[in-house]
């Protein structure tokens, strides 16, 4: 059989890929458990589904492979042409999947109901998608941030820039002004868009929500207090030419650090006009001053 040659070909392919000059050595295989109780539950749900699929695969593929080996004509297998029906087997392989599905549906439904509960939030941020950047407005304090792809990534991503993306830190995943949020506080996001549909996605928060012009969507998160740091995401709904170049960076700070940051921003932005969508053009200047 050609199997040996083919196995060699696969091995060669894998070796070639491993020896790739841009050895970023990521080879990531799985989802992140994330930094909120919900994201960890979703991760658990994902793993539950995964292991169910593996278990079913072992059974079904095992059955198929056994048939392929055991009932070969070349080995003299004689067909049992009367075997076209078996009520007991048919009932089992219909009822068993139903039970497994119920086992999946119960935790899925519970988690879904939890993600939907956007009540009792302490801080509201309006997220606006633009072609191709994100605007954030802290509704209670009026502080605004406009978040665009950072300069280094932007230079490197131009066609024929000659800049090796490997030399740019967090290539395509860093912005000039991140979204700063407090840990341990239930934060509500109100998502909308100015031009076309975008989707705000940060895997660590397990939030992906469409930002739709003329409509407001709600999402919420409460980050574990020990998970301060930077978390990155991207626009997840095709939104035109530069859809791939409007990343999201969430800067998670302790509650005290966040309050301090917000105060500074308020002091800087207070002299400016109160923020309204109409004043968004002026926000560029204000945002440029934020740090």
């Amino acid at each position, binding site marked *: 059989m*050609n199997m040996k040659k*083919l196995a060699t070909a696969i091995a060669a*392919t894998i070796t070639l*890929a491993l020896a*790739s000059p841009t050895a970023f050595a*990521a080879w*990531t295989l799985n*989802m992140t458990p994330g930094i909120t109780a919900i994201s960890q539950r*979703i991760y658990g*749900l*994902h793993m539950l589904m995964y292991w169910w*699929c593996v278990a*079913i*695969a072992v059974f*079904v*593929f095992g059955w*198929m492979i056994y*048939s392929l080996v055991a*009932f*070969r*004509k*070349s080995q003299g*297998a*004689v*067909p*049992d042409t009367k*075997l*076209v029906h078996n009520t007991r087997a*048919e009932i089992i*392989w*219909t009822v068993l*999947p139903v039970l497994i599905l119920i086992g999946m*549906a119960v935790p899925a*439904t519970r*988690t879904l109901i939890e993600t*939907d509960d956007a009540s009792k939030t302490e801080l509201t941020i309006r997220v606006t998608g633009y072609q191709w950047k994100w605007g954030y407005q802290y509704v209670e304090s009026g502080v605004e941030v406009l978040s665009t792809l950072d300069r280094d990534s932007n230079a490197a*991503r131009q*066609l024929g*820039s000659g*800049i*090796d*993306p490997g030399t740019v830190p*967090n*290539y*395509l*995943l860093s912005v000039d002004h991140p979204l700063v949020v407090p840990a341990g506080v239930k934060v509500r996001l109100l998502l909308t868009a100015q*031009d*076309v549909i975008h989707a705000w996605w940060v*895997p660590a928060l397990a939030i*992906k929500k469409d930002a*739709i012009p*003329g*409509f407001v969507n709600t999402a919420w998160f409460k980050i574990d207090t020990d998970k301060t740091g930077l978390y990155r995401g991207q626009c*997840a709904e*095709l939104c*035109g*030419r*530069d859809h*791939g*170049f409007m990343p999201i960076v969430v800067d998670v700070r302790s509650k005290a650090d966040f309050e301090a940051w917000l105060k500074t921003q308020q002091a800087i932005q207070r002299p400016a006009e109160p923020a309204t969508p109409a004043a968004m053009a002026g926000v560029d200047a204000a945002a440029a001053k934020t740090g």
Partner: protein
Amino acid sequence: MAYTEHAAHDHHDHKPSGMWRWLSTTNHKDIGTLYLIFSCVMFFVGGAMAMVIRLELFKPGMQFLDPAFYNSMTTVHALAMIFGAVMPAWVGLANWMIPMQVGAPDMALPRMNNFSFWLLPFAFTLLLLGFFVPGGAPAGGWTLYPPLVLQGGDSFPLAIFAIHLMGASSIMGAINVIVTIMNMRAPGMTLLRMPLFVWTWLITAYLLIAVMPVLAGAVTMLLTDHFFGTSFFSASGGGDPVMFQHVFWFFGHPEVYILILPAFGIVSEVIPTFSRKPLFGYEAMVYATASIAFLSFIVWAHHMFTVGMPLAGELFFMLSTMLIAIPTGVKVFYWSATMWRGSLSFEPPMLFALAFLFLFTIGGFSGLMLAIAPADFQYQDTYFVVAHFHYVLVPGSIFTIFAAVYYWMPKWTGHMYNMTLAKWHFWLSTIFVNVLFFPQHFLGLAGMPRRIPDYATQFADWNMVSSIGGFGFGVSQLLFPYIIYKCIRGGEKATAQVWEGAHGLEWELPSPAPYHTWEEAPTPAQIAHGAEH
């Protein structure tokens, strides 16, 4: 035997020669051939675009394309593959096989049959013309979501008219299939004696008739929004952009089954043949197919879990989607049971059917995972979804088209094809398709969104593997037209039955099948012999 007379009839058949024969033909076999050639051409057109995509994604950084052109590549690749390659292939196979399998002399509406084919070249000329007009080819994704799609240039109306023509063609094709099956079955060919391919196509045809007009309506509303000042999908005029997504996926989800149900039919013919054993649970298979078709109408919003539906909506669509796993899983069990205690041999059609069985099931697993709404918040619009739908469409639909061609080609041409080359085609395709698409699961889970022309460096490794698989898969496909060409030109003479375990009316006919078949209905004995499925 009845068909010696048919052969004599051929002398009286004055079909025009040259180009005019193909333009004016009303013969189901000629039209089937035209559909299959068209499908093959579009498979390579769409495939070339896939190669361009994988080339740009080979490493991080923009090497070759402008991002807008990249978006055109993904958009037109999808439209060409769905509407140009897979759907016409099914219609081509239906044209060739349904009359032969139900004992009818031709399709019921032969002139409409001709028309429905010849619309397609015009449709795709319009679509591909988009590359040469100001603004470039459509780049808003094949799902055509407003408001983005309304930003398109001059190719926007071209694409809309192309979709209208494709839709009209599909509807006519579907009408033809239904009328043929309902009215032209040979006496004694009862519904529950029909081969599974005929059954799955009958159900598919109803899906087409139900949803193609919905798509036509949706794109017409886009057209009037763009040119005539309506606001169906514009919030500023009181419309709703999400309404388009609901309407689109009300078409789009049954469309997914339009692409896969005939594949179920093919597999249900090929596996029994090469297991030398009738299909396990024939009637249950028919009912399972019908229930999948029914469910396909009530699950559409699982494509839109992130648009912000009310909780009740998300719950309903999550649970209804999970239900599909039952009839689909049952089908996989019935195919496995068909092989159980059979006598298996591994000719190329069987190999492709087996690859379908394993790899479509993998696509089914990722589909089940995607059905879980909270988890879908992480999967939606990532490469996990890309991996999922390519697993169900490439080793799902495309591999079964290969299986069907390798299964029936000796009947069409009267020659056996080069089995060794066809097995190479199988092994190369199967290995590379996994190298191509399996790593995309990892990319999606690691956080890579779909439809992006460039990516963060942590996605570089698996993208390179995927691209290598892509190039390997693309090059391997060149074997396919070569094998077909050689088979048409000559080869070992095929017998009437071709495959030892084959049953069905088409195998009661000589190989190659005469230009006109079943002008006299098959005898009850032939039907009984054929119906041993």
